[in-house]
């Protein structure tokens, strides 16, 4: 049992070394770099890991039926590739766009995992809201290229910081994490079957509507109760008599949808956490407002840099005459910004 149940550990570790080398190569560097090669090697490594896991799975009891379907492979490769691109692309804007790709691929994975609500929430919140904010900030915080000039990448974007060491640490972590997870996963208890009748009992309107639309009951009949033990729904008809509907007669429309189940889970199991999450969001909002309203000044180094920059751009202007401060913080000082 353990790791060997899923993949040959030596193969895994060897492929992880390969992956580390690939990611390390793929990181941005000054000058010409084998970024593409590195990315390909990294992708190859991950692909091979999945391949070997599939091979192993096919050889164990249950065969290929244990394997996730084909969409899993598609989405996960897109997600990982996007992620790799996020961290290797020197331009932040592209990084953010690749991140959207990753998010969408992840949403696909969520769908496969029958988490529809979360899949769409992810796309809406992440791709729609958060990433857009990122893009705004990236635009705000990047120097626009001058007319006729190529975009100059900031120095800190061009070169990664100690990519080798980071890759080694990262892949060491993967090795250990996968080892741990395989070990743990192999010892997980079999999942217990779930009876969602209780959820249905909490939704009398839904049950009535479903039964009504399928014609099982008439207008005016009321849901009385759901006997979870006998798996029957008891309906109180308009004339007062009780009608028992066994499970086999339940219409498909009555099935509990993912958002419904998730809603019940959230509000029943985690009501306090929701409150806390709300407070966190509120505080974040307030914090963001307070922080961005704050007046700041350039510090000494930045001032000096700004002055030389201005002098360089407009030799006719004495740098000391026009206040660099006003130029430096247009948002914080609207009048100053307007003047410049």
């Amino acid at each position: 049992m353990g790791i060997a149940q899923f993949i040959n550990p030596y193969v895994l570790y060897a492929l992880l070394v390969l992956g580390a080398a690939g990611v390390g190569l793929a990181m941005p560097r000054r000058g010409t770099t084998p970024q593409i090669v590195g990315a390909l090697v990294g992708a190859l490594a991950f692909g091979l890991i999945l391949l070997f896991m599939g091979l192993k799975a096919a050889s164990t009891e249950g065969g290929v039926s244990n394997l996730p379907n084909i969409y899993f492979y598609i989405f996960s490769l897109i997600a990982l590739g996007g992620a790799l691109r996020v961290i290797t692309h020197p331009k932040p804007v592209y990084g953010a766009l690749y991140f959207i790709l990753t998010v969408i691929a992840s949403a696909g994975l969520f769908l496969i995992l029958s988490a529809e609500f979360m899949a769409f929430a992810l796309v809406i919140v992440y791709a729609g809201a958060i990433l857009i904010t990122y893009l705004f900030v990236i635009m705000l915080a990047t120097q626009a290229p001058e007319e006729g000039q190529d975009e100059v990448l900031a120095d800190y974007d061009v070169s990664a910081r100690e990519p080798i060491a980071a890759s080694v640490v990262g892949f060491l972590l993967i090795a250990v994490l996968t080892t741990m997870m395989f070990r743990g996963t192999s010892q997980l208890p079999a999942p217990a079957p779930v009876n969602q009748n209780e959820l249905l009992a909490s939704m009398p309107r839904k049950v009535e509507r479903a039964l009504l639309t399928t014609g099982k009951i008439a207008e005016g009949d009321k849901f009385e109760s759901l006997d979870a033990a006998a798996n029957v729904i008891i309906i109180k008809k308009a004339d007062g008599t009780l009608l028992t509907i066994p499970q086999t007669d339940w219409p498909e429309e009555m099935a509990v949808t993912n958002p419904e189940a998730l809603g019940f889970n959230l509000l029943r199991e985690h009501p306090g956490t929701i409150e806390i999450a709300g407070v966190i969001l509120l505080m974040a909002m307030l914090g963001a407002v307070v922080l961005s309203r704050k007046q700041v000044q350039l510090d000494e180094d930045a001032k000096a840099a700004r002055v030389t920059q201005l002098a360089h751009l407009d030799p006719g202007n004495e740098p000391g005459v026009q206040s660099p401060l006003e130029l430096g913080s247009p948002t914080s000082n609207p009048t100053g910004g307007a003047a410049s």
Partner: protein
Amino acid sequence: MNVTTLTTLAQANFPEAMSQITLAHYLVISTAMFTIGLVGFLTRRNLIIMFLCTELMFQAAGIAMIAFGRYHLDLSGQSFVVFVLTVAAAEAAMALALVVLLFRRKESLSAEEWKDLQG
């Protein structure tokens, strides 16, 4: 996602459990994504990219949680992703506000510019 194979109607939208091997595949993906995020965080100097990397790690955690929830047929996994999403949003708001503030001061997004915050 094979709805027609469901045995009971109540479980129509909640498929039967997946195997450990399937779960392992998702976990590998999650781990890989997490590590990529980590490596990015360690190597990139741009504050915004670093924050993007943390978002990647959140993403990875989310995948793992939903996969586990799926394995256990428990919706709490998805619930937690809701919270993770919330925290990520809050974090993004605060972090980006801070980044803007820092950028205004130094005209740079490099994390190394702020060494002197060490105290």
